[in-house]
């Protein structure tokens, strides 16, 4: 008989379809070739002029901006969802609220090598990518118009990637997105009731239960959450309490590099190089209750097609128990 589980943070119920359990081999395997052949790829070294001028990069001091030689490079998105110019203007149209689409939309080109994926990088190279996430998050947070910075990655066509060359994206928004708001609301309520951070309590219980742990190192813990929305959904949490990703220190960033690589490699091995998304959930820019919230990374492999139902209803049906998924990933 199937089971209903409640997420302790946002209070969302999900269905674990225990009668029709799916293992790693039971999902769609679709590899779609993305456009962006090496000979024409606009993210490859030597074609820097095809992108808007870079906003940040890691490159030798001798090399000029927008020229080859870089290790990792951040550029504005050529087709941005939000524009950087203008003020945040708010107005009402009858009962509706409208705001000007001011913000930033940037692309982090993760490596100069066209044939490498994020999971192929060395820990050092992964550190460069995370370093860009960090420096751009900090820089965008300085902008008074920005309320939230969202870092995310789409890998593979099924997960929404449109370019082959390894990249992730950063969007700076003039408001806090809904799912983060739900987490904030839940965390604040939990703190009010218990005087503790709900994520810290999740970590404690995961250590007690053990069965949903995927991997850990000094500073980070990866788990398959108790009430997952998707099969093989995995969260990476800093073990110590920290509200914002931008609070991370240099030595912890090194730990995150090895840990994220470890988890991505396990996923690639167990799920046959799946398409996936990950996103950093962090506190809003101006955040008054850092004791309540705990930043984390959510990694969601794209394994099933059925999405319309979830969007229509908000009810997620997950075909794999999190302890089963965690066992596969742990033993990979």
């Amino acid at each position: 008989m199937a089971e209903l589980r409640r997420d302790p943070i946002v209070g969302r119920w999900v269905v674990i379809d225990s009668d029709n359990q799916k293992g790693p081999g039971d999902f769609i395997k679709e590899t779609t070739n993305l456009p962006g052949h090496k000979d024409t790829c606009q993210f490859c070294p030597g074609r820097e002029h095809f992108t808007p001028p870079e906003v940040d990069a890691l490159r030798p001091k001798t090399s000029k901006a927008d020229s080859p030689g870089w290790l990792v490079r951040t550029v504005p998105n050529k087709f941005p969802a939000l524009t950087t110019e203008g003020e945040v203007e708010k107005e009402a149209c009858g009962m509706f609220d409208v705001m000007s689409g001011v913000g930033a939309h940037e692309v982090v080109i993760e490596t100069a090598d066209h044939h490498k994926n994020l999971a192929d990088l060395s820990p050092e190279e992964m550190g460069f990518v995370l370093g860009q996430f960090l420096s751009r998050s900090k820089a965008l947070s300085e902008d008074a118009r920005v309320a939230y910075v969202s870092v995310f990655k789409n890998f593979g066509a099924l997960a929404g990637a449109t370019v082959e060359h390894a990249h992730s994206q950063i969007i700076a928004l003039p408001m806090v997105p809904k799912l983060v708001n739900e987490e904030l609301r839940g965390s604040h309520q939990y703190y009010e009731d218990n005087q503790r951070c709900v994520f810290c309590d999740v970590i404690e219980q995961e250590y007690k239960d053990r069965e949903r742990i995927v991997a850990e190192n000094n500073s980070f813990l990866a788990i398959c959450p108790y009430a997952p929305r998707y099969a093989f959904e995995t969260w990476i949490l800093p073990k110590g309490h920290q509200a914002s990703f931008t609070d991370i220190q240099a030595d912890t960033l090194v730990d995150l590099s090895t840990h994220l690589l470890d988890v991505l490699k396990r996923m690639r091995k167990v799920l046959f190089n799946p398409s996936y998304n990950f996103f950093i959930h962090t506190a809003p820019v101006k955040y008054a209750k850092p004791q309540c919230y705990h930043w984390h990374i959510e990694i969601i492999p794209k394994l099933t097609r059925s999405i319309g139902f979830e969007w229509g209803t908000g009810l997620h049906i997950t075909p794999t128990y999190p302890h089963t998924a965690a066992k596969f990933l742990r033993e990979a």
Partner: protein
Amino acid sequence: MPQLRKDPIVSRWVIIATERARRPAAFFDPKGVDTQKEGCPFCHDAQSIELLTHESVRVVKSGTPVFTEAQDVTLRKDGLYQSCHSHGSHEVVIETPEHIANMADLSLEQIRAVFKTYALRMWHHHQDKSIKYVLAYKNYGVASGSRNIGHARSQIMAIPVLPMRVQDKINGAKLYFNFHERSLFYDLVRQELKEKERIVMETENFIAFCPFAARFPFEIWVLPKSKRQYYDYVHGIEGLETELASVMKTLLLKYKIGLNDPAYNFVIQSAPFDMDMPECYSWHIELLPRLTRTAGFERGTGFYINPIPPEMTAAFLREVNV
């Protein structure tokens, strides 16, 4: 400049792209439903457990149910975590005995019978105190999550908890009602009728419009003009059933003809059975054609980027002759 718009019910912001807005024609993508009649499990179905036959619409138990009747419905607690048996009912509505794939191609009379059947099942589950909510929804086409079988059917789930999106809508509707002492849905109908530009069609008792803060291209909501919290109230009112069926048939045909037979979902959003302040809510139907792949940003943040303004999709759909 792109515009950020806030959904007045659940307070979700969406980005409506204006500069890089795609033309309606850029979305056309055939969904590929298998029309093979041979071996269709819904044409020759002798094994399923039948729950109801209304006119020529059959309701059977799902062969792979995610909700089944449980004796024990108590909430289990394990430290922080809560779980319970997935108690309820999971049903398949076989919309027609004929092997027709798209509901749009059914006769008006047949569609009326299908929507009546939803109401009958809702009413049936309404009697059961352990059921909190009944979902009636449809997946059409592979991209919508449907299995590749070309026989029109929809699904019903009677469940013991409130889905997150329903809870969100109720919270928003209550907040609005407490503040304005009016139903948000009533105001919504009034404003859409006044502005007209997002209306796809209007009949005596219903409006269909592309919502102001649409998450998806060509998203449509169908609302009754006079506030009715429960979907099953439609039935029993003279003429309303046929009117709703004709609105749905027209909209689905507009999708089929105008958007090249896309995959789509629709879901009926009724009030929960034991809702307090039901006067703040109104049932409605959400139609979502599956034309784009939503990516990590949407999944991870709940923040949608819609590549085409709803005013443009409404104008396009208005012009599609069916």
